[in-house]
């Protein structure tokens, strides 16, 4: 089922295993390959409401596998402008395509300078190797 391990170079990473794709003043967020692999097949996505605000380093929702629950940590602060309804319906989409179809929310950034604090793919891989 799940795709092979990858950490695309165009994404930014948070040490809690979340990724962000920066698009002007917005960002698309999701969880990394490592996170979905550690959890196993996802069976539930507790998504935030559109319009809700999310804060960097804080939980904005949850994903669950059969055995475990995991908080979703936002790498950046902002306001939720879209929720991926496909993942609400079919959470396993995240296992199949963590960086594409399996995105979780899109936010409008309230402090774009926060991006500087995130890891690039090489630094995130180093973090994984050290764990």
């Amino acid at each position, binding site marked *: *089922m799940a795709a092979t391990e990858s950490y695309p170079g165009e994404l930014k990473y948070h040490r809690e295993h979340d990724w962000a794709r920066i698009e002007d003043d917005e960002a698309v967020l999701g969880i990394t390959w490592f996170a979905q692999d550690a959890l*196993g*097949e996802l*069976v*539930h996505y507790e998504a935030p409401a559109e319009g809700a605000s999310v804060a960097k380093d804080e939980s904005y929702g*949850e994903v669950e596998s*059969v*055995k475990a*629950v995991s908080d979703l940590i936002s790498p950046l602060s902002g306001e939720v402008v879209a929720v991926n309804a496909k993942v*609400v319906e079919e959470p396993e989409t995240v296992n199949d395509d963590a960086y594409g179809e399996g995105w979780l929310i899109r936010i409008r950034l309230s402090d774009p300078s926060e991006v500087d604090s995130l890891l690039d793919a090489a630094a995130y891989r180093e973090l994984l190797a050290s764990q």
Partner: protein
Amino acid sequence: MAQTLQQTPLHDRHVALGARMVPFAGWEMPVQYAGVIPEHRAVRRDCGVFDVSHMGEIEIEGPRAAKLLQSTLSNDLDRIRAGQAQYTLLTNETGGVVDDLIVYKLDEFRFLLVVNAANRAVDYRWFRDREIPGSDVRDVSDEYALLAVQGPRAFEHLGLPDAKAFTFAEGEIDGIVCMVNRTGYTGEAGCELLVMAEDAGELWDRVLERGAQPCGLGARDTLRLEACFPLHGQDITPETDAISAGLTWCCALDKEFTGADPLREIKERGPDRKLAPFVMEERAIPRTGMAIDGGGEVTSGTHSPMLDRGVGMGYVPAPDAKPGTELTIDVRGRPRRARVVKKPIYPSHETA
């Protein structure tokens, strides 16, 4: 911190198959290979094999072995003959459940008990402390491995004839002799193969070659919960009594055994709380320890791969245990609706 975990004779095979190994009741056990959901479905539709060698085996032998067991176990041992097995409870003085187990009557003077891994030492001690002249209690767990081969096509794959549930006989699979027990913990047809520890690896290889899918403890838990089989340590404990747990059917209240008096009393006046199975009406997965509105608590919860919904069991005030009752479960601060259902949560080939 660095606690040494025990390993079953199949440990290296699990690792070679890419299993995710986790600590469980002092053992390093495979929680999944391909994934909980595909393994679960394999057992419901075809056939899966589980290494359950962590479970304990206690043998009780002697002219008064039956007497010792009749006075300590809840079910009536006189109801089974040699070659038959029985689900039964080891109960304490208050009617609480020390363990749930299966007793196999090898002959009039010899019984084999298959007990939960976490309770092996407690059970052994329990029987030793109550040993009477003419009953010899031995922990023989290390001599055996146990493979559960489960699913509607289990016997077909093994090339064995099906048999009546809760019977056992000596059998042979590709030349390997084992005890074939028509028992399991999935709600499906199938058997548990008790084999000498040194033959376990070869038996495991043959069973896989015959088409059984390797399954881990993750799928074992989702399968047993769909079938509404209680898990000791969660749904039943030394602090919960057998009547409230819905296990009156395996308590022979017309005989004397440890805890019989309090159990008769609870049955007479009716339990205050009952263990009830439920299915979520909203998207949410119930988990052990979550509160149920009105004074209840979830004891087991998961995502049901067959229903594709959250399901669970929990103790609720007795009037709320009626099928159809709506429950509200506190899912990490969010109230989520569930409905009490009849057992089993998912009717399989065996439990329908």
